[in-house]
């Protein structure tokens, strides 16, 4: 990459020189030298594409005038007739930067590269050979290369994206493998999140004060991962609540979530041996209208004065209203959501907030559900690889900058995005 940059710098310097010459040119006598045709001219089928395109390459010229222009001429047979399909100034279509990764460096290692695609000027038919000439013209003289032939073809695989595919395969294997391992040993290490201590503290406080706990599962339906996480945590909360005989209030916005939460709560109470303490009124449906639901829950907060409020799951704008009223009601508030727009309000107005993935991690930690644990581990593995790539990449590209070499890019480019 650095070579390319320095090359570009040279090119810019060259450009400046040219500009000066061009300015001076009218002063001097007219340039009578003949033009040389472009050197190392190559034409190939554009690799890694869907066909309908040819790639031209040639070397940078010892340019002798800013008015220099390239023309691309094309014909169906070697004898022509040749038709102009593209024209551009000499300073366009340089190879700049690592547009192509090292693993698909083209067979034309030239400085100029131009992709000639089917369009308004020309329509390529895949599988048909075409003859291409490159001409230069400085207004007074012109010169052209010998015609070369190439056949546009569609490709079956875009090798530029090999690294993308490789990551896809590796990550898929990681996910499937981690889930399988978690099925065998669900108690694999997961960091205990600070918020979980807060959960227990909140339940403890509610018991001490003899006040109920208000638990909200958010505003999304069961297809939202954060709702699923919220119901999992509800199960754990319900287990603890049942042994302490604290009241539990779970108002709902979605009938399906209501039905599932009823099952979950009942099961939790049964598991801890307190089925008699369970009542079906713990979970109830209010309405699906955003603000009417919010108003009703606000009412419950102020009337029942719960000691602890759990705001888990997905929230929209109602987060602010709920958290504010809960705060006013004097409850310990624990929030957890992956709705990033609402996170700031929860962080400010609640005592503890499970941010984004922490919510999933909390539910995996509590439930030890193999799929959840496995996915979390696989994602961690992915993050670890990317973290390593970042550190290594920055170290190598800094080294490359210091030693002015492109060698290190071989490793770094694996984590670049190519088209």
């Amino acid at each position, binding site marked *: 990459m650095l070579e390319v940059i320095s090359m570009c710098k040279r090119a810019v310097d060259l450009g400046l020189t040219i500009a000066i010459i061009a300015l001076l040119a009218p002063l001097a006598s007219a340039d009578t030298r003949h033009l040389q045709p472009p050197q190392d001219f190559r034409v190939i089928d554009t690799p890694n594409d869907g066909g309908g395109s040819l790639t031209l390459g040639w070397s940078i010229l010892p340019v002798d005038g800013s008015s220099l222009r390239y023309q691309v001429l094309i014909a169906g047979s070697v004898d022509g007739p040749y038709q102009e399909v593209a024209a551009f100034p000499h300073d366009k279509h340089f190879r700049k930067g690592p547009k192509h990764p090292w693993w698909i460096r083209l067979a034309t290692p030239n400085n100029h590269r131009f992709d000639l695609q089917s369009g*308004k000027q020309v329509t390529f038919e895949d599988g048909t050979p075409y003859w291409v000439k490159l001409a230069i013209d400085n207004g007074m003289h012109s010169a052209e290369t010998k015609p070369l032939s190439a056949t546009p073809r569609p490709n079956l695989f875009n090798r530029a994206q090999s690294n993308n595919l490789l990551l896809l395969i590796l990550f898929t294997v990681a996910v499937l493998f981690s889930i399988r391992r978690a099925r065998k040993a669900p108690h694999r290490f997961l960091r205990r999140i600070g918020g979980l201590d807060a959960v227990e503290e909140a339940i403890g406080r509610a018991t001490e004060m003899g006040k109920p706990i208000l638990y909200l599962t958010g505003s999304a339906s069961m297809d939202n991962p954060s709702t699923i996480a919220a119901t999992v945590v509800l199960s754990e909360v319900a287990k603890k609540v049942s042994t302490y005989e604290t009241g539990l209030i779970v108002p709902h916005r979605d009938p399906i979530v209501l039905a599932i939460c009823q099952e979950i709560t009942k099961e939790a109470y049964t598991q801890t041996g307190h089925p008699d303490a369970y009542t079906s009124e713990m979970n109830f449906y209010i309405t699906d209208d955003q603000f009417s639901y919010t108003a009703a829950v606000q009412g419950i907060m102020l009337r029942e004065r719960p000691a602890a409020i759990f705001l888990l799951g997905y929230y929209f704008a109602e987060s602010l209203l709920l958290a504010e009223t809960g705060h006013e009601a004097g409850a310990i508030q624990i929030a957890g959501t992956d709705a*990033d*727009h609402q996170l700031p309000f929860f962080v400010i107005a609640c005592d503890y907030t499970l941010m984004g993935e922490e919510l999933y991690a909390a539910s995996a930690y509590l439930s030890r559900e193999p799929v959840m644990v496995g996915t979390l581990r696989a994602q961690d593995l992915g993050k670890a690889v990317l973290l390593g790539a970042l550190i290594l990449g920055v170290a190598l590209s800094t080294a490359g900058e210091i030693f002015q070499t492109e060698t290190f890019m071989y490793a770094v480019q694996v984590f670049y995005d190519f*088209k």
Partner: protein
Amino acid sequence: MNLSNHSIVTRMLAIDRRFIFMLIALATLIPLLNPINLPIMISPEVRAVYDHMESLPEGSVFLLSMDFDPASKPEVYPQAIALLRHAFKKNLKVIGLTLLVTGTGMAEEAMATVAEELEKINGTDYAFLGWRPGASAVILSMGQDLVGTFPQDHYGIPIDELSVMHNVKTLRDVDYAVSLAAGFPGVDEWYIYGKDKYRFELGGGSTAVMAPGLYPRLRAGQINGLIGGLRGAAEYEKLLDQSGKATAGMDSQSATHFVIIVLVIICNVFYVISRRQKRT
């Protein structure tokens, strides 16, 4: 002494919240009625969109995807108006559409209003394609075959009969696309399913809520500029030198922000006082 202080703090905090509602209403209303037109500075991300529009030669294809619903109208609609004015003034070929069904009417209205203002004709200067369900699938489909996705425009006219759409077969033929987003689908989807593959230049406009989330895309060059919220629209209006709703709202925006700043500070002063009192 402490006790009386305490009670003042508690009483102050217990003020009916409708009093604060009143405060916000006044902070909005008074500057709207008596504008002082404070100068608006231009941020680089808005200028980038403007400059790119300026650099487009006449007849370039400009696609505006108005992906917002009535809930975000005050913020994003002025952006749409400003961009459309710019595009029509530059004699670009304008294609409008929306990915949010409830935004169809506003998108239609924005196109028609600005076109009428600048005397542009439907079909020759611009086309309004309307809405399609499927969000990201629509972008994918347009990338492959725009005419197949929208065989007819919003008014039922076959696309082939609209001269503005000649030579626009897929998203690859679009010179500049801007998505004005209020949520999903929006700028993210236009990048992931559109520009990532079809390589047209993409700009973004969004509600202020979404804007911070789009900065990584801006930094990585995935979008070339970003118009954020009403403030962004006001900046664009200033660049165009044609004041509109956004510029008019800026004084109120200033006033309400400062009300909130003061409220937060008061809240924390009370909080610190009450905490000290608890300690003693």
